[in-house]
């Protein structure tokens, strides 16, 4: 169970998260939707403790992440897996070293165990025989899948996905969606995904939360969100150019050039 209570975070006076509250249930896939730059990634980074909140708390299994020392934080992070928007694979390491990074760094695993874990993780994401390649030799979609393999290599309890389908073609995007669902069903993990891709959100989510102006303005099942009456959520999910979100913003200059 992850609880986010009154979370505030600002950068150089610009408020990104403003008294945000959200509870994430164990074993569920929660998708956080919102416009680009609205603070979705900042929220994920607060959950895993890369960023510290200005005020408020992130409780993972009842413990405040911001109050943990380096050791506790590292123990916690080994329970997490995170897929970054651009996969964030280490350029200097090959696929095997990337996927097995946690095992190589933090566990006294034998080469045989490592090899087995790498093969299994890569098989889960539908890849094989690329262990010796460098990230630069892979396509965008493959990089993303290797990133996912790295996130699941030591079987975390919670996976954070930062825009899992952004930057890959629609077919690959759907394959990644299927993968997330499969991982969720097979490994019984808690997942938090942030995205602005509604197709993906409807497909993978147990619950959808919308982040707007630094707050979670609505939480519901995909069906509830689809049938919502809230004008802000409606505008976002239908992708309408005119509505309360863009009120006062003149898009005509874009058309005129």
């Amino acid at each position, binding site marked *: 169970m992850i609880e986010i209570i009154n979370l505030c975070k600002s950068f150089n006076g610009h408020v990104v998260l403003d008294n945000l509250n959200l509870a994430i249930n164990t074993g569920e896939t929660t998708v956080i939707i919102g416009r680009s730059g609205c603070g979705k990634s900042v929220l994920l980074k607060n959950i895993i403790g890369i960023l510290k909140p200005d005020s408020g708390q992130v409780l993972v299994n009842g413990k405040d992440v911001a109050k943990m020392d380096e050791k506790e934080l590292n123990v916690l*992070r080994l329970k*997490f897996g995170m897929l970054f928007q651009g996969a*964030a*694979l*280490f*350029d200097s390491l090959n696929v095997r070293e990337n996927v097995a*990074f946690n095992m190589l*760094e933090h566990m006294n695993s034998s080469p045989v165990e490592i090899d087995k874990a790498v093969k299994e993780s890569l098989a889960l994401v539908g890849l094989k025989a690329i262990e010796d390649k460098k990230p630069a030799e892979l396509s965008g979609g493959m990089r993303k899948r290797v990133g996912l393999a790295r996130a699941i290599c030591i079987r975390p309890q919670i996976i954070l996905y930062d825009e899992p389908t952004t930057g890959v073609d629609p077919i690959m995007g759907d394959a990644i969606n299927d993968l997330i669902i499969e991982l969720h069903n097979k490994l019984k993990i808690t997942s938090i995904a942030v995205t602005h891709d509604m197709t993906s959100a409807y497909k993978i989510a147990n619950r959808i939360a919308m982040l707007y102006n630094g707050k979670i303005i609505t939480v519901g099942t995909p069906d509830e969100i689809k049938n919502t009456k809230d004008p802000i959520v409606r505008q976002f999910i239908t992708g309408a150019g005119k509505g309360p979100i863009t009120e006062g913003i003149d898009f005509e200059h874009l058309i005129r050039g």
Partner: protein
Amino acid sequence: MKKILDLLVALGHRFMDFVRYTGGLTILLGQTIFWIPMPPFRRRQIFEQMSRIGVDSLPIVSLISLFTGMVLALQSAYQMQKFSAEMYIASLVAFSMTRELGPVLTALIVAGRVGASITAEVGTMKVTEQIDALETLATNPIKYLVVPRFLALMIMLPLLTLYADMIGVIGGYIIGVYKLGISHAMYMQNTWHPLKYKDLFTGLVKSYFFAIIICIVACYEGMTAEGGAEGVGRSTTSSVVVSFILIIACDCFFTALFYFVMR
């Protein structure tokens, strides 16, 4: 009145930026020193960095030191010939190389070659979220990225400096013996005889501090890079500029210190 106020505000901002920057460098240095004795010790990575920083810099260091030694000999010959004091050219080259030019030139070369590449690499890792990824994989970025580079530079820069001293002397020898007609025995005697351990030592002390400057500035610039490729480019430029300024300032400080303390 408003103009004066604006000026003061701008000056205040500049000053705060300066304080923030120096503070950032100091904190990074402190954290690096803190992480050095903590396991795991990444021997493989340290050796890799030593090879990249030291071995790969040998050609350019050789070239520049050799020419510097030759130029030193030629320029001093121009003056010394007036007093028929050519035989002192050997001592002049040896002193200038070991006390001053060896450490400073090597540091400048390494700051340009290695410092820039460290900033570009770490900066790219920062803007592509690889540093965040390290943290999510329960690995401290300073321990993983900065410490191996720091240790490698601390070992390799003094060694490169000694090597540059030697090559510089050889450059002077080539001009002194083959161009100016000083005898081999005379040149060697005038090189070794007046040279004391102190001269080598002061050069090496400088090079240790230069190594710290190069590594910390390069890593700090890399880790604070933002704004994509353009940001990495900006950080790389400022890494080299700041290293150069700090190296020269630090050199001036130590030269003055040794002049007054170790006369």
